[in-house]
């Protein structure tokens, strides 16, 4: 080794540092969700947790699959599957922006040597019936994070509001290591031998093979069948929940908390993934497209409504919403 310059963080150190940072600020460290999703937002740890009154703080890495974005591993900046570090703070603390900037310090970015801007970028997911207001955070001209105040999810107005921070891990990794291709990012470095494993070593085959699958070989007929099976079952579950709630007497000793809305949500995620594969295969015509998105949204909205209903009796924990409580105390003497 000739260089005396300290090595920048490896990809896995980057993840570890961010996780440690948020764990130290009270977040539950979750593991990636084990059903295919297009974004960290779709994992139930975001989609379902932001609903209802219960405060929650969570951080997790979420590999996110977007079949149409695949480039056979040939484009240095684009991936079929990229990784997001997702942080949900419900409700957000008042100093949320400062906290976020501190997290950049934790991964070795000295902000005094950089240019940082919060530029308007609102987020919307028609498939999830979700939207929020926020920014893309620009570091020296590079978008490194999506910062969103969720307003609605599954068509439900949120109360309390959650903040979602989505760090683009590959972009940040390439930035820290100053490499031009994602595949050149050092993923791990053996502390003893100094042997480096690159992002390409870990993931290139993944990108190539899934591009071939998603663009060329995925069976359109069976993908449609999968879609329809999952949709029908999901819809059936949502209807069943609604029917029980409408006629509780007939349901007898039915316990609403046992009802597997989480199972229904998995089915909805599978529909969304099948839609993405069909889209990448060019199997969805113009006229169908809007309609299919609406079908997935109907499932997401149905589940969100049911979920809110299922959890409505949950008491908000005592430590709930420090911000709201504080302001109540402050405002009392004035009025």
């Amino acid at each position, binding site marked *: 080794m000739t260089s005396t310059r300290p090595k920048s963080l490896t990809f896995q150190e980057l993840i570890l540092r961010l996780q440690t940072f948020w764990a130290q600020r009270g977040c539950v460290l979750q593991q990636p969700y084990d059903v295919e999703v297009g974004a960290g937002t779709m994992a139930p740890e975001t989609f379902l947790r932001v609903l209802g009154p219960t405060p929650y703080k969570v951080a997790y890495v979420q590999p996110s699959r977007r079949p149409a974005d695949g480039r056979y591993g040939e*484009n*240095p*900046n*684009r991936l079929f599957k990229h990784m997001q570090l997702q942080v949900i703070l419900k*409700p*957000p603390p*008042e100093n949320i*922006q400062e906290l976020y*900037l501190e997290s950049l310090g934790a991964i070795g970015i000295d*902000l*005094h*040597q*950089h*240019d*940082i*801007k*919060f*530029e*308007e970028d*609102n987020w919307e997911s028609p498939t999830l019936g979700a939207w929020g*207001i926020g*920014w893309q955070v620009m*570091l*020296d*001209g*590079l978008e490194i994070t999506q910062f969103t*105040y969720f*307003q609605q999810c599954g068509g439900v107005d949120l*109360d*309390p*509001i959650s903040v979602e921070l989505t760090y683009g891990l590959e972009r940040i990794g390439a*930035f820290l290591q*100053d490499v*031009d291709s994602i595949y050149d990012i050092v993923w791990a470095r053996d502390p003893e031998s100094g042997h480096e494993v690159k992002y390409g070593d870990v993931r290139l085959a993944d990108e190539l093979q899934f591009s071939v699958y998603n663009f060329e070989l995925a069976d359109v007929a069976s993908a449609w069948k999968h879609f329809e099976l999952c949709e029908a079952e999901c819809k059936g579950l949502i209807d069943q929940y609604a029917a029980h709630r409408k006629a509780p007497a007939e349901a007898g000793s039915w316990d609403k908390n046992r009802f597997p809305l989480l199972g229904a949500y998995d089915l909805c995620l599978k529909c969304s993934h099948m839609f993405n594969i069909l889209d990448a295969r*060019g199997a969805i*015509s*113009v*006229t169908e*497209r*809007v309609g299919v998105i609406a079908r997935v949204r109907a499932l997401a909205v149905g589940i969100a409504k049911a979920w809110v209903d299922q959890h409505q009796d949950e008491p908000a924990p005592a430590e709930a*919403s420090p*911000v*709201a409580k504080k*302001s109540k105390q*402050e*405002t009392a003497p*004035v009025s």
Partner: protein
Amino acid sequence: MPDFLLEIGTEEIPARMIQTAAAELEKRIHDLLVRERLPAAEAVSGFDTPRRLAVIAPGIPAAQPDITEQLTGPSLSVAFKNGEPTPAAHAFAKKAGVEISQLERVTTPKGEYLAAKVTKKGRSSAEILAEALPKEIAFIYWPKNMYWRKPSERFVRPVRWLVALLDDQVVPLEFDGVRAGNTSRGHRLLGEASVRISRPGTYVEELYAAKVMGRDVRKMLIAEQLSLTARLANGFLRQDDSLLDTVTDLTEFPTVILGDFDPEFLSLPEEVLVTVMRDHQKYFAVEDAQHKLMPHFLAVLNTEGDREGIIRHGNARVLRARFNDARFFWQTDQKRSLLDRVGLLKNVTFQKDLGSYYEKTIRVQRLCSWLSEIVRQNNIAVRPGVVHKAALLAKTDLTTELVKEFTELQGIVGGLYAREQELDSELPAATRLAIADVIYDHYKPESMEDSVPRSLEGAVLSVGDKADTIAGMFALGLVPSGSKDPFALRRQANAIVKTIAEHKLPFRLTELVQDARAEYAGSPAEKKFGNKDFASATGSFFRERLEFYLRDTLGFKYDVVNAVLAAGAENVVDAVARAEAVTKVRPSPDFESLSVAFKRVKNILRQAQESKKQIAAAPDSNLLQEAAEKELAGQIPLTAKAVEALRAGQEYEPALLEISRLRPVVDKFFDQVMVMVEDEKVRANRLSLLQTLLKEFSTIADFSEIVTEGPKESSN
């Protein structure tokens, strides 16, 4: 008199919203102070950055002035019985807050009454401001609002601090749980997290010390640094005013840096490079003395400097990746020619009910063939083949990777590719180039400031493409209303009007949109057409657009525009010519007087119709009695014939002068002839004469719409 300061501290406000909101807040506070009788000694001024909106009002009264008013009480006869005050007198004294002995007496026409002088104490400005400002803040209009916690106010972004000072005293106001104080915040990285503001007068300096500059200072500084920095690379800044505004509203303490990119990228078209820099990275481009792009960029930072070049390095890295992408897309796109892409348009939605871009392409192609034919019939040289081919290929760039990535380059990319791919080798090179230019230009003009397509063929395609969109949307009932115009139909109609006017195209507006509507016949889209008012809705829509064009773009006076459009709003070129003629003739005394006469004619006819008076179908010369009416009746056909000849040749100014020569005859008629006489036949005949006058001479403009200054009787 204390100075007043309000600062609303927020998380970063979207750049595009800051200016309007800052102006609104300034106006709200100015109006509030006037309304509350607390006017500032000097003009109220604003100070804004992405993280704050502030207003300073210098020298406002510490309190409202007291108001003394006289209250009138009961009459003396009621107030006193036998010299003793009655309960009514006691009650009045109590209400006025004085002893009975202090009450005054006033004499009114109705008799003597008790009265009292009451002084209403003015409230303190601190009290008024604390009470009123939270509402003013909450009422600021934002294109998009949010909640950051609940229950709470809505605002553009979370409000994190407030400063409200009257000199050094905090005004105790509160907005959404945030209490005002005297602590502001400096620049995120360069300044102190909390900055004490001593008083409004020192606010700007104290913030400057905390590395926060006001907008004017930032804008000037950025503009100056951009020019100077470009010179460092022996180049010149490529001016971009809207980008300058954006970066000004993204920074609190700006610095400009110069970066480079690999000159190899200059092989990509400038349009692509500049779009990537401007729209995606907010960089300014650098050009040489011949306006050719140079391999540099200028980035505006929100920090003090970049001594070690770290930031420049980072920005250059991002730009390299973007340019690499663009080059990759450019090369990938060449694998499939535009001609081969026509079929792919079946998979691109134009509008969910109007079908795909393929269907649009076919419709527009047919429509444009017809439009070319109209142009040709009017003896204007046009190349229908060029229009036809360009219409076929115009939308194909929507299937290219480059446009999918940089949507704002639609049309331009198609034009560039058409040039590159040499299309059909059987066509002469000049024709191929003409087709490429037509595709390149066909979205133009994108605003009223933008230029229209360069060629006549480009103008035809631009008009046809937009007419197709407007016709489809209106037929579906997706009509713009108020501030809602999600498909930018007004902008597209404005573009049609401007293009027709500048290229002097012979299209009539409602015929154009009806022809476009006809192309949908038999399509699946047509089954969804539910708008029964299509004709009247498009008619009034285009009339408004033409009115807007004449008034706001060309600057004609509103009454001239009304007069001209009343005589026809179909033919754009003709309407412009008539407006020009009316504007020229209007100052002449004959014309003024004639327009007064025409108003009178209109009134007489309206009243006659309202009172159900009969009007003869045509004037009968046998019923003419007075010399003046005989003269008028004799003159009308002569003038009409002369005017008609001039009008047919579109010689509007001489035509109007001809009409204005009627003035003495018309004046004499009104001086000497009574229209509403008892004799029914004579009256009907005279009314008919006036109707003929109005009808014959309102074909260029309706003179009665012209606003005249009226009789000059006022002394000043």
